[in-house]
C-alpha cells in the first residue's frame, strides 16, 4: 500500500484551504469469479480495482474526490479537488503525524484465492451441477446454475487525526440455483455459503450439500400452494430469518437516520422498543462471518455493539462523522462499497441472541400459521418502520404441525410493532450460512445475520390464497 510520507503530504494538501478534517482511503481489490449455467462453465472473470478516495470536512460539509491514479501527483490532484469541493476559506498549513495502529484481524485466511489454481474453482462448479442433477427426485430439475466468487480487498486509511490503519480481508462465496419443472410450472431453489475466509472455506463446506439443498428447495415448491393473504402468526426458522431484524430495526438504528430524525427509533434510547425476548447485537468482530473485518472503512476497529437488550434500546450504530457531532466514539460502523464512495453508517453482522424455548415446541404451540424456513432479501422505510421481506421456502402450520409448502411471497410489517409481537424465542441460535449484500443509497456491502427460531404473533403475508 502507500508510503506514510506520501499519505502525510496528501493530507496536508487536503487541509491547505482550511479543512478541519481530511482522510485518504486507499483500496486495492482483486476479484475472481467463475459461473456455471446450463451445464457449461460459461466464463471465468478476473477484476482489479485500485484507487483512493479523499474527503475533506469543513463544518457540516464534506468534499470528496477519488482517483485511480495512485501516484503522488494523482493523489495531490484528488486532494485538491476534495478540498475545493469542501469550499472553505481558512488557509494555513497543518501537518499531520501519522501513528500506525493495528487492530486484530478477526480471522486469518489460510489460502489466498489468487494462489488457487483455476481448475479447482471450475471443479467446484461441475461438482455442484452434478450433485444438483443427481439428487433424489432430481428428474424434475431442468436447470442448474452455480457461481463461485472471491474477493481479496486490502485497504489503508490515513486521516488528519493522525490515524493510520490497514486491513486485508478475503471473502469467498458459493451459490447454487436449481430450477425444477412440474405440473404447476417452474420453481426455483437457492442456497449459498459466504464467509470472510480464503479457499479453505471448502474444507468445511461441501458444495454437493449446497447443491442438494437448492434442489430440495425447488422440488418442495413444485407442490406448493399459494401463500395465505392477510395477518397470521409466523414462525421463522433459525439463521437467515435475521433479515427480519436487519430490516425491522437495524436500518432504523443507524445514526445517520437518527440524526436526521428520519427513524422511528429517534430519541428512544432507554425505552422498551421490543418484547423482552429481544436482545439484538451488531458485531463486526465475528471471526470469519461474512460481515466481519478488523477495521471499518474509516479505520476504526470493528466492535461488538449491543443495540437492544431484553427489549430496551441501548444504543445506535455510528460512523466517524455522526459520532464526532455527538461527541462520542465511533462504533466501527463506517463502511463504503469502494474507494469511489463516501462512507456511511452500515451494519456488519446483526443477530438476535437465543432464548430458552424449544424450536419444535414453538411450532407445536402454533395452531395455525406460516413457518418460514428460508428467507430472501428485504427492504425498509426507516422513517415509518414499514418493512418487507421475502420467503423463499415456507410452509403452512396446521394444528401445530408443519404441512404444505407455500409459493414465494413477501411478508410486510412495521418494525416496532413486530418487535413487540415476538412472543417466543428458541435456544437454537444460528448464523445464516449465506450472508447477504445490503444496499443503501446505492452502495452495497456484505452483511451477516443470525437468529434463533422465533414466533411473531401476527404478520401480514402477501399471498394470493383467500
Amino acid at each position, binding site marked *: 500500500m502507500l508510503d506514510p510520507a506520501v499519505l502525510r503530504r496528501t493530507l496536508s494538501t487536503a487541509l491547505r484551504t482550511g479543512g478541519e478534517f481530511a482522510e485518504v482511503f486507499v483500496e486495492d481489490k482483486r476479484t475472481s469469479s467463475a459461473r456455471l449455467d*446450463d451445464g*457449461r462453465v*460459461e*466464463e*471465468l*472473470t*478476473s477484476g*482489479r*480495482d*485500485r484507487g483512493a478516495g479523499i474527503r475533506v470536512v469543513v463544518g*457540516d*460539509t*464534506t*468534499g*470528496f*474526490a*477519488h482517483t*485511480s491514479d495512485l501516484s503522488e501527483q494523482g493523489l495531490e490532484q484528488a486532494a485538491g*479537488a476534495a478540498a475545493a*469541493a469542501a*469550499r472553505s476559506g481558512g488557509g494555513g498549513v497543518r501537518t499531520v503525524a501519522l501513528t500506525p495502529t493495528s487492530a486484530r484481524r478477526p480471522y486469518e485466511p489460510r489460502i489466498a484465492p489468487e494462489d488457487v489454481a*483455476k*481448475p479447482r474453482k*471450475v471443479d467446484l462448479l461441475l461438482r455442484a451441477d452434478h450433485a444438483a442433477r443427481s439428487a433424489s427426485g432430481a428428474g424434475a430439475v*431442468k*436447470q442448474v446454475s452455480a457461481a463461485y466468487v472471491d474477493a481479496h480487498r486490502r485497504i489503508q486509511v490515513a486521516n488528519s487525526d493522525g490515524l493510520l490503519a490497514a486491513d486485508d480481508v478475503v471473502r469467498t462465496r458459493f451459490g447454487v440455483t436449481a430450477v425444477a*419443472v412440474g405440473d404447476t*410450472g*417452474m*420453481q426455483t431453489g437457492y442456497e449459498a455459503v459466504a464467509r470472510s475466509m480464503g479457499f479453505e472455506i471448502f474444507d468445511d463446506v461441501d458444495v454437493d450439500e449446497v447443491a442438494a439443498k437448492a434442489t430440495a428447495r425447488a422440488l418442495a*415448491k413444485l407442490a406448493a400452494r399459494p*401463500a395465505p*393473504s*392477510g*395477518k397470521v402468526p409466523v414462525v421463522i426458522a433459525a439463521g437467515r430469518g435475521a433479515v427480519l431484524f436487519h430490516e425491522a430495526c437495524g436500518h432504523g438504528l443507524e445514526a445517520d437516520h437518527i440524526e*436526521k*430524525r*428520519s427513524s422511528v427509533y429517534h430519541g428512544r434510547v432507554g425505552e422498551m422498543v421490543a418484547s423482552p425476548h429481544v436482545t439484538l447485537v451488531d458485531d463486526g468482530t465475528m471471526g470469519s462471518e461474512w460481515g466481519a473485518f478488523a477495521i471499518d472503512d474509516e479505520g476504526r476497529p470493528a466492535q461488538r455493539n449491543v443495540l437492544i437488550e431484553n427489549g430496551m434500546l441501548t444504543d445506535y450504530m455510528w460512523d466517524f462523522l455522526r459520532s464526532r457531532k455527538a461527541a462520542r466514539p465511533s462504533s466501527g460502523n463506517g463502511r463504503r462499497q469502494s474507494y469511489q464512495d*463516501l462512507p456511511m453508517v452500515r451494519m456488519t453482522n446483526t443477530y438476535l441472541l437465543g432464548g430458552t424455548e424449544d424450536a419444535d415446541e414453538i411450532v407445536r404451540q402454533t395452531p395455525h400459521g406460516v413457518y418460514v424456513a428460508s428467507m430472501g*432479501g*428485504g*427492504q425498509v*422505510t426507516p*422513517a*415509518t418502520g*414499514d*418493512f*418487507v*421481506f*421475502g420467503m423463499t421456502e415456507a410452509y403452512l402450520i396446521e394444528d401445530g404441525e408443519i404441512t404444505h409448502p407455500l*409459493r*414465494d*411471497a*413477501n411478508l*410486510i*410489517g412495521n418494525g416496532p410493532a413486530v418487535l413487540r409481537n415476538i412472543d417466543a424465542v428458541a435456544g437454537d441460535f444460528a448464523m445464516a450460512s449465506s450472508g447477504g449484500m445490503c444496499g443503501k443509497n446505492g452502495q452495497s456491502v456484505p452483511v451477516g445475520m443470525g437468529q434463533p427460531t422465533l414466533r411473531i404473533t401476527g404478520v*401480514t403475508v*402477501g*399471498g*394470493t390464497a383467500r
Partner: protein
Amino acid sequence: MTELLELASRVAGWARDGEQVEAYVSRRSDTDVVIYGGEIESLSSATSEGVGVRVLASGRQGFAYAGSLDPSVVEETLAEARDNAGFGTPDEHLGLAGPEGVAAAELDLWRDDLASFPTQAKIDLALELERRVRAGDPRISAVESSNYGDGASESAVASSTGIAATTRRTGCHVSAYALAGEGDETQTGGGYSVGRSPADLDIGEAATDAVERSTRLLGARKPPSARVTVVLDNRVATTLLAVLAGTLNGESVLKGRSLFANRVGEEVAAGAVSLVEDPTNPDAYGASAYDAEGLACRPVVLISDGVLQGFVYNTHAGRRAGVPSTGSAVRAGFKSAPGVGCRALSLAPGTESQAEIMARIGEGLLVQGVSGVHSGVNPVSGDFSVGAEGLMIRDGELAEPVREITVASTIQRMLRDVVAVGNDVTWLPGSAAGVTLAIAGMSMSGA
C-alpha cells in the same frame, strides 16, 4: 472519444491466431451534491475509467476487467482474460459479433452545456429544490435529502472481428425525499426530475411530487385483505415492465427458465397489451445507438395485441437459437461481459387518462409505491408479491390512504388481467417507460 476507440482497437489488434479479442473501454465524470438543512452535506466530483476484455479461443470465453486505462494495466487485463479463456466449457455458439450491415440510429444523447454548467449552479438547484419542498406544505417536517447529480459517459467497443463503435451520453437529475408529519405520524415520499442537460430539469415538478407523495399518505391505515382492481401509477408500472423484461430475454428462454419459452404466437396477455423494446427512441432513458457488442440497436416487437412475438437476443444467444442478434447485448459497465437485456421497453398507450381509468373501474386501489420487488418477485415461477402503499379508489375517485399492505398475483395472470393501459406514457429512469396500468383481481393483503 477517438482516444477510447483507438485504445479499444489497439487491444483488439493484439489478438493471436485462432483467437478473437474484444475490448470495451469507458470513462465517465460524475458530480453529486447532497443538501440537508440548507447546507451542503457532501459534494463529490470524480472521473473514473476502465477496460473490460473478452478473449475467445477454442470455443471458450474468458473475461477480465480493470478500473484503469494505464497501458501496463490494459496489457495485464488482456493476459488475464486470455488465461481465463483456458478453463471454460467449449461452446460451438460462442463468437464475437461482426459487422452485419444494419445502420445505427443517429441519436444525439450528449449535451455540451452539462460540462459548462458551474458547480455553484448545481448546488443552487439542489438548495432550491429543498426550499420548494419545505415550502410546499406546512406538514412537511423535513427533507431527508435533496440531491443534484450528473454524469457524462463515453465508451468504445472494438473487436478483432471488425466491430468499432462508440457511444456517449450525458444525464442529470434532481431528487428530494421528504418527511411529512401530523401528530405522532410520519410519512415519506420522493420526487425527481431527470434530463440530458440541466435545462431539461423541472424543479417544480420534482418538488410537487415529493410533497404530494409524502403528505397524501398521512392518516394511512392498513385495510382488510381483499381482492381488488389495482391501478399502478406510472412509476410503479415501470418497475413491473422491468421485471417482465427478464422473462422476455432470449437467453433465459434458451436455458429453460422463462415463463414464455415455446409460447411464441400464443396469446399471453390481454388484447390491450402491445410491448415494444426500442432503444432507438431518443426519448427513452436507456436510448442507445449501439448495443454492448457494438451492433446497431433496433426496435423489437415482443407482444402485439396480447400475442407473444419473440424475444431479445445478443450474438451468442441468437446463434444458439438460430436467429440474428436483435442488438440487445447489455453490460454493467466495463466490469462485465455482455449479457442480454432490454433498454427501452414501452407499452403502446391506450386512450384513457389515469382519472378516466379510475372513474371507469369505480372501486380499487391506486398503488403509488412498491417495495421488496427484489425479494417478492420470482421471474422464473412468476410469483409476484410486493409491499405497497397508495390510496383506495371509491366511486371512481381517490379515497383514504393505505399502507403496510402487499399486492400479489403471478406475472402470467397479471398480463391477462390488464383492464386498461393509460395514455400517459412517460419515460422514466430505468429500462422502461411508465404508463398507468390497471390490473383486475389482485390480492391485497392487509389486516
